């Protein structure tokens, strides 16, 4: 067993464990803990990428996924102040059974078919001439600006469109059908939650006037 293999099993096991923890009860119950365990999983994956001589991709993984995407996720989760899921989900649904069967099928398929097909696969020796720069920033960058120039430009357009779309979607002034009153701000939500807890057991009528009550509550403090 080489150091590389040991590292692979540690990192791979960690990535699988962290992604599974994202969905399974102890952490998976609360969205924010899910998000944190997903960040951990991304770190393991970044390590795996580095192990596969893709240093640039490993660094990008951390910058883009852990640094930007997951920051957005945690920011949204925390601002929406989502509490752990205490909803009455049925234990076993048709969807869950289907998911399990399909997942087992895909894993089984890959392990058997690909395992058989790639059993004797030999990796290219990166020491031999022509491969010294494999995975280096220069090589990836060169390829991005030559053979993949059009997709690269399209991606930049896509990112621009996504940025504009995200801003428009997140704007407050969208008019929806039967839109309820404006959402409570972060600070009102703290009170709104207290309010909901005092009225636990009531239906959704409770939280539609919660912001209003919370404002009154806050005002009475002054």
């Amino acid at each position, binding site marked *: 067993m080489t150091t590389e293999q040991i590292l692979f099993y540690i990192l791979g096991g960690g990535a699988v464990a962290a992604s599974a923890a994202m969905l399974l009860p102890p952490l998976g119950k609360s969205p924010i803990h899910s998000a*944190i365990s997903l960040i951990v999983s991304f770190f393991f994956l970044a390590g795996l990428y580095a192990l596969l001589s893709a*240093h640039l991709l490993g660094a990008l993984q951390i910058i883009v996924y852990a*640094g*930007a995407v997951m920051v957005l996720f945690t920011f949204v989760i925390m601002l929406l102040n989502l509490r752990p899921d205490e909803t009455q989900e049925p234990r076993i649904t048709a969807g869950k059974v289907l998911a399990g069967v399909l997942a087992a099928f895909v894993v089984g398929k890959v392990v058997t078919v690909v395992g058989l097909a790639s059993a004797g696969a030999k990796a290219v020796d990166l020491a031999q001439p022509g491969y010294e720069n494999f995975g280096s920033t220069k090589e990836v960058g060169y390829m991005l600006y030559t053979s993949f120039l059009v997709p690269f430009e399209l991606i930049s357009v896509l990112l621009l469109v996504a940025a504009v779309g995200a801003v428009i979607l997140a704007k407050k002034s969208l008019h929806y059908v039967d839109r309820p009153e404006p959402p409570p701000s972060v600070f009102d939500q703290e009170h709104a939650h207290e309010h909901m807890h005092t009225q636990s057991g009531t239906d959704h009528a409770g939280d539609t006037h919660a912001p209003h009550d919370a404002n009154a509550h806050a005002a009475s403090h002054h």
Partner: protein
Amino acid sequence: MDLIQHGFLRGIAYGLLIITVVMTATAWGMWLERKIAAQMQNRMGPMFVGFHGLLQPVADMLKLLQKEDILPAGADDWLFNLAPILTALFAIATAAVVPWSAQIVASDLDVGLLWVLALGGIMVVPVWMAGWASNNKFALIGGMRAVAQSVSYGVPLVLTSMVAVVFTGTMSLSGIVQFQMAHGWLIYWPPGPGIIAFLLFYMALLAESNRIPFDIPEAESELVAGISTEYTGMKFGMFYVAEYVHTMVGSAIAALIFLGGWDGPFHWLPGLHWMVAKTVILFVSVYWVRWTLLRFRSDQLMRLCWLYLVPMSLALLVFAAVWVTYFAA
């Protein structure tokens, strides 16, 4: 055992050494800052513990270790405890790729600069975790401000460091220094854009490490102590240490990519001396600025970033690309 032959163990040994040195230097960096601040305000600063208060950092640490560990009511204990550890971890991890001289480097990645920027960018996660998990308004506002500021100022920070990358054609920190040893430091060659890029980088660095004039996330007159409001004892200490380590590593990076790293005017001194001298000068200047200037308002801060720093760094980047394509030999 191939990784060990490739310097796996050597990397670990250097890593431990560099972490120890950086942490020690950070401790006395705090002492130095207090002394400078005191001189600027015409007072003495720490004087009692050791000669001119030289043992003050040790005393501070002992004090922090003895303090009660308090978990606020309603706090999310898991995140609350994890945040300071992660903050300190990320701050120290950036130190791993900083080459202090041609030989003294724990891990000379070919994407070293990107690694530093990545870890600097991800520092917002634990900061925001701390702000939210404390279940405290001041901490939450501090965390929100910290995220907004660090995400915004991350843009000019990355863009200005990309200016250096475009000029030198490499992302490896030691590669950037070697280029500067051959072609002159980036701060004065090519004339003009180098120094502007350096100044922009320096400003973005101040903002990234939450230093005055960009320290609204912990503006003590409005937010008590921002994200660290609810933290006590060593957990508070970790935030404190992380902040200083971040500033120190940031100064080292600025010295590496704009000031020529371990290159000096004469070469009979080992490169380490020049590197340390440049880092310390930048580190001190951060505190000089801190104790001189006032604090921006939140909206002024965002306007400065998006209306001035980002367009300027974009223009610099375009200039750098044009220069490299048409003027560089």
